[in-house]
C-alpha cells in the first residue's frame, strides 16, 4: 500500500496542473483568439459605451421600452450586510424566486402583476412569462406573445403607429432552431435598441 502514496501526491499534482491550470488557460487563449466577442461576454456598445450584454437581461421600467420578465435577483443590503434586498437583473448574483406551486407569496405577487398588466392592455390575455420570474433572474428574452402584449403601450409612449412597432417585434423574433429545438423568443435589449435606432 505504501507505494501508492507517491502517485497519490505526484499524479494528483500533475493532473491538477493539466486540468486545473493548463486546460482553462489554454482554452482562454484559444477561445479569445477565435471568438473574441463571445469570450468577453457578448458585450454591446453604443456610442462607445458598454450598454450591456446581448445575453444578459436588464431592467426596463420606462413605458417607451419593452419590459423583460420580473426578476428575483438579490443584492446585499447596504445598511446591513447580513441581509439581502431585491435588486432585479443583478448580473453579479443570479438566482430565481424559488417559490413553490402552493406559495402564498407567489400567488399574491402573480395577482398583483396580472391586475397591473390587465389595466395596461385589457384587450389581450396576459402571457404567463410576463408575470413569472425566470430561473436566473437574467432572462434576456420574452415570448413573442409577451412582446405583442406590450406593443400598444410602447407605440403610445413613443407616439408612433402600432404597425411600425409590430414590424420591429417581428424582425426581432427568433424561431426554433431547425423549426424544432428551443422556443420562439424576442431578445428585449435587442428590440429596445432597434426601437431607439428607428427613432433617430
Amino acid at each position, binding site marked *: 500500500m505504501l507505494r501508492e502514496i507517491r502517485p497519490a501526491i505526484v499524479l494528483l499534482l500533475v493532473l491538477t496542473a493539466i486540468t486545473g491550470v493548463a486546460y482553462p488557460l489554454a482554452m482562454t487563449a484559444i*477561445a479569445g483568439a477565435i471568438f473574441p466577442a463571445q469570450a468577453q461576454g457578448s458585450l454591446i456598445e453604443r456610442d462607445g459605451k458598454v450598454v450591456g450584454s446581448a445575453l444578459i437581461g*436588464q431592467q426596463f421600467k420606462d413605458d417607451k421600452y419593452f419590459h423583460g420578465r420580473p426578476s428575483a435577483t438579490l443584492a446585499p443590503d447596504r445598511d446591513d450586510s447580513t441581509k439581502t434586498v431585491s435588486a432585479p437583473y*443583478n448580473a453579479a*448574483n443570479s438566482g*430565481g424566486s424559488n417559490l413553490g406551486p402552493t406559495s402564498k407569496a407567489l400567488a399574491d405577487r402573480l395577482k398583483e402583476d396580472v391586475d397591473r398588466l390587465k389595466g395596461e392592455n385589457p384587450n389581450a390575455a396576459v402571457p404567463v412569462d410576463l408575470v*413569472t420570474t425566470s430561473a436566473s433572474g437574467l432572462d434576456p428574452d420574452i415570448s413573442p406573445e409577451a412582446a405583442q402584449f406590450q406593443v400598444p403601450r410602447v407605440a403610445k409612449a413613443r407616439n408612433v403607429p402600432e404597425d411600425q412597432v409590430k414590424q420591429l417585434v417581428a424582425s426581432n423574433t427568433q424561431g426554433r432552431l431547425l423549426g424544432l429545438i428551443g422556443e420562439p423568443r424576442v431578445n428585449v435589449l435587442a428590440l429596445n435598441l432597434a426601437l431607439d435606432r428607428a427613432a433617430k
Partner: protein
Amino acid sequence: MTAIGWLQIILYCAIIVALTKPLGWYLTRVFNGERTFLSPVLRPIEAGIYWFSGVDEKREQHWLTYTVAMLLFHVGGFLIIYGVMRLQAVLPFNPAGQGAVAEDLSFNTAISFITNTNWQNYGGESTLSYLVQMLGLTHQNFLSAATGIALAVALIRGFSRASTRTVGNFWVDVTRTTLYVLLPICVVYTLFLVSQGIPQTLGDYVEATTLEGAKQTIAVGPVASQVAIKMLGTNGGGFFNANASHPFENPTALSNFVQMLSIFTLGAALTNVFGRMVGNQRQGWAILAVMGVLFGAGVAVTYWAEAGGTSTLHALGLTGGNMEGKEVRFGIVASSLFAVITTAASCGAVNAMHDSFTALGGMIPLINMQLGEIIVGGVGAGLYGMLLFVVLAIFVAGLMVGRTPEYVGKKIEAREVKMAMLAILVLPLMYLGWTAVGVVYPSAVASMANAGPHGFTEVLYAFTSATGNNGSAFAGLTGNTLFYNLTLASAMFVGRFFMIIPAMAIAGSLAAKKSIPPSAGTFPTTGGLFVGLVVGVILIIGGLTFFPALALGPIVEHLAMNAGQIF
C-alpha cells in the same frame, strides 16, 4: 404538451442511443490500454506522467489496493480545494476581490467536489475567485468524473475476468480516462460553448450602463472550460449561482440541447462497454433498456405536470404551463427534460429552478435521485449503482426458482448480495435520517424558504441530492449554515464512499470466481423478462423505502394544491 415538444424529446433519446455504440467501442479500447487515434499525441504524455509519478502501468492492483489508491487520491483533492478556498484572498486570479471562504463552507464545498456532487452552498460569482473556479473546482470536475469511470470499469472487470486477484490499476485508469476521454472532448466542447456565447476570460467583471441609465455589473470569467467538464463529467457545479439557467452558462437552445446530450452520453456508452467486456453487447443493451423505461416514464410525468401548470396560475387565467423559475429560451419542454436528465444522471446542473416546479413535476427528480441515480447515472457511478440492483434482481429471480443465481457467467452468492444490500440501504439511511433531523432541529427549520409541505420537500430534496451525489437543489433552502454545511457534507461522503466500497468488494470477489458457461438452466439476462424484473425490483425496493416520505411532501402538496390551498 405539444407535438413539437415530444419531437424534441424523441430526437434527444435517438441521438443518445446512436452515440452509445461508437463511443462504447472507443471507451473499451481506452480502458483495455489499446491504441486509439489520439495515441500518437497522447501516448508520450501518458508515459511521461507514469514515469514522473512512479506508476508501473503493467502492475495491476487487488480490489483493496485499488480502493485505497482511490481514497488517497480524494484526500489530496480535498486538501487542494479546501486550501485554495481558504487562501483565495491572497492568491492570484481574483479580480473581484473575493475574501477567504468560511471554514464550514470550504469544508462543504471540498467534500462536495471530491464526491462528484457539486452541491452549491456557495454562489459562484459572489463568493469564488477565478483561481478557485479553475484550480479548485474545474480540476476536481475532471478527477472525480475520471474516478467514477475508473471504478465502474473495475467493477466491469470483476464480471468479465475469471480466477484473478486484480481488477486493474487505479492510476492508469484515471490517467487514461482524463487524457483520452475527458480532455479531448472538453477542448472541442469548450470552443463550441464559447461560439454559443459562454464567456471564457480572465478579465474583470464588466460595468455596463443600461439603456435606462442604471449601472449593471456583469459577472464573467473562465466559464466555458468549466461548463464543458461539469456537464460531461456529470458534476453539475455551476460557475454562477443560477447554474445552467444563467444565460452565460447556457445561452441558446442549441447549447442547452448539447449540454443535455453531454450529461448522458458517457454514462450510456458505459453500458456498451459493459456488454463488450463481458463478451455480449446485448447484456449492455438490456441494462440501457431498463434505464430507458424508467427515464421515459419520468420525462412523461414531469412534462405533463409542468405543461399543466398550477391552480394558482389557472385561477388568474394564465395559460402556457408553469413558467415560474424557467427561462423563455428553454420553455416548458426543455426545462422538464433537463430536470429529469440531470437527476437521472448524478449531474445536478439545473436550467430551471426545481423549487418552483409543480409538486408532481418536482417529485420525479426527487424519485430519480432516491432510486440511486441509476438511470444512466453519474459517469461510472450510474453503472455500478445499476449493477448492484441487477445483482439483487438476479438474486430474487434465483430465489423464485431455487437455483444459485448467475449473471454473465458469474455465480451471485451471499457475499455479493450482502454488499449490494449494504450499498442500497445506506442511501435511505442518510437522506431519511438527516431529513428527520432537519425538520425538527430549530436552526435547520429556519432555512426553509417555503411553508407547508413544500418546505419539507426542500429539506428532503437537499439530503437526497447530497446522498445521491447529485447536487441539484430546491434552492430556496438556505444551505449555507453551519448545520447544513456539516450534515450535507456527511451525507455526500457516506453516499459516495459507502456505495463505492461495497461495489469494489463485489468487483474483487467476482474477479476471483470461475466463469461458468451458460446452460439450459441459466436465466437469460438479455431479454424483456430480465428488463421487466430489474425495473420491478428497482421500483419495489425504492418504493418501499421512500414512498412514506414522498407522501408527506410532494404528494400531499399536490392534493392541497388541487383543493385550492396555499401556504
